[in-house]
């Protein structure tokens, strides 16, 4: 029974460690393309506020939107597109006055770092040598929605459709490329930078082929700590926040866009 006893002990220790981490917490649901930058900004945010912990819920903006609609206990929502935020606004689920657009991004097509497949322009995606292309599922993933927009504008959607593999979020798309499971994938330039050793840029779709990629953030209406939540949103547009975002390759928020 020695083994059983040590198992019970190990589980109790783990439970104790988990319980100790609970304190004043702010839950931020954020588009997964923002993972590295927002974690960094949140670290600075919590550092100046003793006792405050920031918890993150990463996913595709569409998935996070549905969770908030279903009543998820979230304080701040950060979306990779206006569409999902507009939808929550329409349903009265966010605080409209505190909504801020705080960053912009650019779409790119990447291939595995060791790929020998020649992909230099959008038309190449339709070539027979390319069999699998990953995009975020356009139903829930903004990066996939932008990719679909771009492919349609370039007249390529119907020609590449049979090659498309849908990912649950943009980082999964990135991972499929990094693992070499697909020939190419649509991600943001900031994602490509995160896995610089495993993927390389093939080409960038013309920026006028999709709508501008902007990130809005807002306080969720059901929050029990609106002050703290709004402070987090303001941190994103602050000088400190913008400096972190620039370091991760995001472009500054356009003036006057909400």
């Amino acid at each position, binding site marked *: 029974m020695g083994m059983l006893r040590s198992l019970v002990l190990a589980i109790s220790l783990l439970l104790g460690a988990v319980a100790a981490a609970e304190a004043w917490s702010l839950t931020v649901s954020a588009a997964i393309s923002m993972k590295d930058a927002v974690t960094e900004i949140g670290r600075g945010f919590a550092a100046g506020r003793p006792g405050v912990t920031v918890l993150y819920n990463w996913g595709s903006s*569409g998935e996070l939107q549905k969770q908030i*609609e279903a009543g998820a206990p979230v304080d701040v929502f950060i979306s990779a597109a206006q569409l999902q935020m507009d939808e929550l606004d329409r349903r009265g689920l966010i605080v409209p006055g505190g909504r801020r657009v705080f960053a912009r991004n650019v779409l790119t097509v990447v291939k595995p770092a060791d790929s020998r497949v020649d992909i230099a322009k959008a038309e190449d995606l339709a070539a027979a040598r390319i069999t699998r292309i990953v995009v975020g*599922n356009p*139903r*829930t993933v903004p990066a996939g929605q932008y990719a679909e927009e771009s492919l349609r504008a370039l007249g390529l959607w119907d020609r590449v459709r049979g090659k498309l*593999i*849908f990912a649950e979020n943009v980082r999964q798309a990135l991972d499929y490329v990094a*693992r070499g499971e*697909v020939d190419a994938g649509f991600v943001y330039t900031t994602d490509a930078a995160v896995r610089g050793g495993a993927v390389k840029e093939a080409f960038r779709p013309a920026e006028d082929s999709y709508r501008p990629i902007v990130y809005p953030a807002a306080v969720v209406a059901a929050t029990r700590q609106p002050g703290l939540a709004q402070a987090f949103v303001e941190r994103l547009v602050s000088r400190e926040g913008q400096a972190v975002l620039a370091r991760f390759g995001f472009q500054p928020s356009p003036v006057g866009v909400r």
Partner: protein
Amino acid sequence: MMSPDNLTALRLSLQVAVAATALNALVGIPIAYLLARRRFWGKSLLDLAVMLPLVLPPTVVGYYLIVLLGRRGVLGAPLYELSGFTVAFTWYAAVIAATVMALPLLVRTARAAIESVDRDLERAAYTLGRSELRTVLEVTLPLARNGILAGLVLAFARALGEFGATLMLAGNIPGRTATVPLSIYTAVQTGESAEALGLVVALTALSCLVLVAANRLGARPA
């Protein structure tokens, strides 16, 4: 209640489950026999490996399958070099994931059924000059038939409901790898609860049928 997309998912699920059950019969019945009747080196290791998917999270099984069969996997890389074919994100990937996840249910049930066959009858066959293979085919398996069939039915049900390992190895591609459980997940995520409901009802009804069939055959849930 059943949209064309739902029907596609349902047909795909049935195809995957049938194929996985066939593979299970091919692989699982010999394993069950070996575990029930033979002593050999590594027997408890084989037993452990086959039973692991029963307790491991499907995502862990999915991870192993990617390491094994991905385009850069242990088996996947040479296969891709030789043939340009990759299992991941295809219909086959869904079948493999479902097969591995369902295997313990068949092996457990079939092993118990084979163990309950009277050994004297097998010995009698041997004394009459029958080889082991013929004894298995003419004596052991026919006597263990109900238990093996029940195991196959349970494996079919498990294959029908497989989610995690399938998602990881086969992805969630509508019409190709998006089986009913995956389609339900997508439908709920995108807020299409009517779509989800249709599939939920269909899968529940199908699973009830399967359980009733397994009970009739005298299987205890493994």
